[in-house]
């Protein structure tokens, strides 16, 4: 009887494990099937490097270069803002903060992760967008920069909590050794702890960026969604994710536009897959 129970539980867990992989494969196959159908109509290079996105014209122009650049620009901006702040915050929590403020800070950061992106988008729309418009004397505040700032808020919790874990798991003896040699606290952090935790911190950064590139709702609300190749971070952009979200409702099933949206899905999938693999490699290097 006990053995039977053991057997059933074991198999159940196995099925759960296989199921998650199975679903990922199914999703990927579906994406491929629908997305690759596009290339009967459009050459892959024209799709990736075409400069105009006019999906509902006759004939449609399906070039996603402006969208790719838009996504990259917003992500880059968010990385520049969130990495220094996030890593700095992680160092403070792991090393410097007294036990009490450490607890408060950690709880606060987890709370930040719990804010739905549509709420952040809305807050950005009514506060950040007018601020950026007035600050830089722009014709409109719906810009890549607004998106970057809001997305930085979304990447920060991921970066802080994983980087803090990495710093915390550096063996105590390293730190004690450094102190014993007469190093100051700052010297220890900079020369000993950061290099020792570097692979974990890199993974934290990659996962944070992975979250940013897949984010949809907030960027759709505050980046202006103009499908033009961005000249600066103070110009409106249209991201890959916002394009799918905004246009999926309209696309006639089985049309070139419909397949193109799935092909954009493939591009996004490849980008986030690459980021996740890099993060994984970083984490494993540590062990």
């Amino acid at each position: 009887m006990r053995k039977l129970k053991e057997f059933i539980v074991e198999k159940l867990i196995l099925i759960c494990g296989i199921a998650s992989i199975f679903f990922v494969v199914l999703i990927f196959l579906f994406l491929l099937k629908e997305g690759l159908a596009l290339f009967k109509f459009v050459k892959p290079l024209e799709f990736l490097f075409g400069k105009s996105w006019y999906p509902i014209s006759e004939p449609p122009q399906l070039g996603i270069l402006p969208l790719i650049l838009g996504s990259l620009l917003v992500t880059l901006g968010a990385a520049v803002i969130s990495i220094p702040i996030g890593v700095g915050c992680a160092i403070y929590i792991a090393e410097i903060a007294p036990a009490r403020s450490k607890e408060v800070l950690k709880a606060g950061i987890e709370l930040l992760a719990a804010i739905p992106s549509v709420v952040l988008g809305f807050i950005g729309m009514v506060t950040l967008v007018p601020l950026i418009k007035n600050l830089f004397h722009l014709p409109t505040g719906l810009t890549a920069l607004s998106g970057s700032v809001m997305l930085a808020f979304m990447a920060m919790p991921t970066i802080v909590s994983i980087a803090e874990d990495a710093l915390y798991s550096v063996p105590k003896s390293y730190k004690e050794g450094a102190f014993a040699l007469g190093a100051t606290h700052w010297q220890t952090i900079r020369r000993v702890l950061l290099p020792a935790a570097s692979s974990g911190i890199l993974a934290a950064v990659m996962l944070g960026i992975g979250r940013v590139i897949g984010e949809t709702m907030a960027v759709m609300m505050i980046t202006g969604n103009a499908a033009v190749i961005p000249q600066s971070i103070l110009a409106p952009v249209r991201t890959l994710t916002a394009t799918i979200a905004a246009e999926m409702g309209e696309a006639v099933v089985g049309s070139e536009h419909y397949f193109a949206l799935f092909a954009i899905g493939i591009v996004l999938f490849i980008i986030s897959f690459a980021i996740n693999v890099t993060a994984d490699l970083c984490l494993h290097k540590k062990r």
Partner: protein
Amino acid sequence: MIKKLLLFLAVITFAASSFAAAKNSIQVKGSDTMVNLGQAWAEKYMETNPGDFVAVTGGGSGTGFSSLISGTCDIAMSSRNIKEKEMALAKGKGINPNEIKVALDGLAVVVNPKNPVSKLTTAQLAGIFTGRIKNWKELGGNDGRIVLLSREVNSGTHVYFKEHVLRENNPNSREEFSPAALMLSSSQAIADEVAGNPDAIGYYGMGYISNKQKPVMVAGDEKSEYEAPTIENVISGKYPISRPLFIYTNGQPQGLVKKFVDFCLSKEGQEIVLATDFVPIEK
């Protein structure tokens, strides 16, 4: 444990039966332009016909058609005619879209009240929205780059504006919205941005005009009179940018759907059209 399970089952069956009981309900879906109108119709209709239920949701004309085709709504509201591709798709699924014209809508072009420009020809509008005219100075306004606001491509308003203003009703024209145009997801978002941005210009149905925006007077060409987007001017046909609004049903409307459609076309229904700032169709 078993007691809990039974209770759970009882709740499920109850919920399922109450859904089944809601057979006298209609789903209406589609054009964002028409959501307010549809909502007003539904409210008045349900007041006079207690027991019937009409649910109205927006999403864009294209969304309405795809719901009608997939059978998830009974009536699609649309601010444009059905496309050939959508028609073919519907026929393939055994759906037979039936077009009923229910109202007219004037498309207002709006700017910020601080903007001195108040008259434009449709040719100038085409120049502005395709990106050939870039500065308000060229139109006699202040020195400032024009900020173009457009609806997303799932909007019937977007399609209408492109075909009838940008392409000036020429089906062979290849004109497109300037890629620099900001694509906003609702008429309200355009109204808000125009209200706060002195260099912005946008377009939407007349119903969304408030005192925070200034509707531009439009002329078909330089020789004609500049007309404001008012109900009288749309009925008389003097205002150049107006369009019909439709609802689509699957085949000839029957039963509850027919009752609702008849209500929309009745004198009372057309009074609601007027009250929501659209233009009634002539009887």
